[in-house]
């Protein structure tokens, strides 16, 4: 078990290096700092001096990989690759284009992101599993049929529609909760209610349908017939036998996204003006602030790898057959 975790952590290193190389290539080789400067300063009427100044201010005036003019270790460290990419490994993100410290900003914004993502995740899981169980219990009836039709219809609706429609109806027409914004403390509930609700509703269609398929697959297995042969009621079969087995793919599928909850939701946060990491990312994309995007890419990969590891570990908890070696 321990050996397994250590091996997985070691395996994360080449992956993170790969991620870093990829982003480095995208950001500094495909588009050179000169391109970026020209982009930021406006394409026409740009003097070389202005470009130089822009690059110097942001530390893009160094060589990419090897600095021949520097001394000693500086040959390696005083390069763009080292300063902009390698430092990410120690979670040193540097500064955004507006001069703010990215690390500090991330720590500040994590809270609001989690405040939406965690309740939405838990509530969503609960609601969809319940619906799926309901459909599985009433399988091959009209309830099941129309339930599936509803699911397909709901998953065909754009998430933008849920957000815009929900915001319009609940906030603007019914005036139930504020249309957007965020406040700390107990007050947050008012602001969080709608975004959480919308993210749950938007996910119902596809998840319910998927979980229903998992349940039906389990119901078709031999051990279910054995359980029925014992004289157990259909309820007991579903809850004692089927649910426990079906939870293995469902939970382990859900666990992988838990770490990514930190990243927040891009759409919801920006629509509702919640100062989380999702809206931070969107703002950075719109402002073309590469330093922030790069940092978020790195954090995202770290969290994804953590999610994979958590998934494997959660297998050992829910499935007695799995022993990690």
């Amino acid at each position: 078990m321990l050996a397994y975790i250590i091996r997985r952590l070691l395996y994360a290193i080449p992956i993170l290096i790969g991620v870093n190389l990829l982003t480095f290539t995208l950001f500094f080789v495909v588009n050179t700092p000169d391109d970026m400067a020209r982009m930021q300063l406006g394409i026409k009427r740009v003097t070389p001096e202005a470009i130089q100044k822009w690059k110097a201010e942001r530390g893009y005036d160094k060589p990419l990989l090897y600095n021949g003019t520097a001394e000693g270790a500086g040959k390696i460290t005083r390069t763009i690759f080292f300063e902009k990419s390698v430092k990410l490994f120690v979670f040193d993100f540097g500064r955004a284009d507006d001069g703010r410290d990215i690390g500090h900003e991330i720590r500040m914004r994590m809270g609001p992101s989690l405040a939406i993502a965690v309740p939405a995740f838990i509530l969503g899981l609960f609601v969809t599993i319940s619906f799926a169980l309901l459909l599985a219990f009433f399988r091959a009836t009209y309830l099941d049929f129309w339930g599936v039709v509803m699911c397909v219809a709901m998953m065909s609706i754009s998430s933008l529609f849920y957000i815009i429609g929900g915001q319009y109806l609940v906030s603007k027409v019914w005036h139930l909760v504020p249309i957007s914004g965020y406040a700390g403390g107990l007050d947050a509930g008012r602001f969080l209610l709608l975004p959480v609700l919308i993210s749950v509703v938007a996910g119902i269609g596809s998840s319910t349908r998927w979980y229903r398929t998992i349940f039906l697959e389990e119901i078709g297995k031999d051990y279910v017939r054995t359980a029925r042969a014992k004289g157990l009621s259909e309820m007991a079969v579903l809850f004692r036998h089927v649910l426990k087995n079906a939870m293995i793919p469902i939970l382990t599928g859900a666990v992988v996204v838990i770490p990514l909850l930190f990243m927040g939701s891009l759409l919801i946060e920006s629509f509702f003006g919640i100062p989380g990491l999702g809206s931070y990312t969107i703002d950075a994309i719109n402002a073309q602030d590469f330093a922030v995007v790069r940092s978020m890419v790195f954090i995202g990969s770290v969290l994804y790898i953590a999610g994979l590891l958590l998934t494997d570990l959660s297998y050992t908890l829910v499935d007695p057959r799995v022993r990690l070696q």
Partner: protein
Amino acid sequence: MSLLRVESLQTSLAGAAGVVRAVDDVTFEVAAGETFALLGESGCGKSMTALSLMRLLPDAGSIVGGRVLLGGRDLLALSESEMREVRGSELAMIFQEPATSLNPVLSVGEQIVEVLERHASINGTAARRRALELVAAVGIPDPERRLDEYPFQLSGGMKQRVMIAMALAGDPALLIADEPTTALDVTIQAQVLELLGQIQRSRGMGMLLITHDLGIVSQLAQRVGVMYAGELVEIADRAAFFASPKHPYSNKLFAALPRPERRGAMLETIPGSVPPLSAMFAGCRFAERCPSAWARCRDEGPAWHTAGESHAVRCHLFDPTAPDEEGSSRITAASPLQVTDKETPPPQADTSLLEVSDLKVHFPIRQGVFKRVVGQVKAVDGVSLRLTLGRTLALVGESGCGKTTVGKAILQLLQPSGGNVRFAGEELTSLSPARLRALRADMQIVFQDPYGSLDPRMRVGDIIEEGMAALGTASGLAVRDRQIDEMMARVGLSSEMRGRYPHEFSGGQRQRIAIARALAVAPRLLVCDEPTSALDVSVQAQILNLLKELQATLGLAYLFITHNIGVVEYLAHEVAVMYLGRIVERGGVREILNDPKHPYTEALLSAVPRLDADSGRPVIVLKGDMPSPARPPAGCHFHPRCPRAMPQCSVGYPAETQLGGGRSVCCYLYEQIRS
């Protein structure tokens, strides 16, 4: 007063091709304390009958008519919740696949206690104590520990014992056992059959045994019902049935069994195939395949007729009112066997085609942070074989003993870890890929699973052509075309079938196609990896006949990998018995089968259920399971299970002892004799 009475049960299954009447007008009785066996080949409706009794049919199935009286109460008239009271308490069932029939994420104890809570209304420590008793009663060693284990930690035989314990937990009056040992090895099957018989006797329980194996019927049942195409065709006491089966179909089943008496003769086969059950039948369902059918059989369904005391047959042959002239074609025993094949002459010592010496196939076990190799699974650990042209060597053993791995390693489909394979004078293990390719036409393989061995996306013609194209054995399209036709004719398929896809063929036909594919490149050695184990007895007979005929005409050498002793007796010239990666005994087929020397061979042979169960021949029931090849026991691999183990057996592996006449055995019992 019978315990169970089934009256004209009718069950239909809705399929893609219309409604299939899987069980049609089935009537029988099981008395308390009696074992009634339902015998039939796959698809005859015997499992559907069992599931109908439990009212556990798959979603597509429904009971259309009839009554099922258990202790006088009609189960089909009960409400679903009343039926749930019956299931697991009065009526319990065990299934064919113990591996999938237990819930993988609940412990053994939980699954047994569940029944106790449901039906015996005991829970807590009392339930656990009772579960412990049950687990001990079905012969599971160390029950205290096993109760907290999960199914995946148990071997197949242990799982089936747990299933039995679960079935017994509700103290049923009738136990339905649906092919309870089909998924198990012979020695484990012997254990489970013994357990079932003993439980049934000691509890005075009724048992409905569903099986396709005549041997098991003979060993366990008091009465037999034979099913064909959804109908019961014959019901009789065991003794009467085995003494003289009356229905032509029953007769054919006996005649199709490979037995030593039939060596050198062709096996009896049943022409044609089981009619689709979606059809409406006017006459007898067996008429089209019956050697003694006449006009009446095709027009009029036969009624039940008595044929001796407690023996009933559904056949016009036994109609006492029938006009006498028809009686001329009556048959009562298997038709005379036609002798085609003279025993092939014993081989000359120098015509050896294949020589395997000290073959090893090890798979590394990796562990730790850097996946270091910490051990080896010794799947094959020093196997030596010799095979000459025109002869059959049977490699016999139970699953997991490494026999399939030997076959694949000989053909270089797996890289051997050590040892030599000489084929026609060439050392295969060190050949260059190009030279090896050239030799591949000389050695081919036929696999076990007729469904997995043909590419579903290729036409039969293309499948047979594949080898010729890959090896370039036949140049020119016209030549190849003609050869494909020849091959198909040779294995008994018409060349019009070339354009069809595998799914349009039955299991036996598919196996013919697989044989044609291998033969198309004109091999000299054919490795047959359990080619008949997935087939019904009557179809198995066809394939065995075909293999025998091909050997006689083409002079092929067969390495026949199997666990079926009957097939060995019929087909093989020499036998090598494998246990846990090594050969423990080898020699001529008669010597080994009639006079086994190694205790394992002895136990293996005695464990095979025989038709003459009353002959008083003792069954040696081995303890425990085959150990894992990753951790073989020290000394002789067999000693922990060996009834004749001696102190030295646990110390070192016995050397091979030559017994003369080409026989050898690896056992200390015989080393002593020699020295």
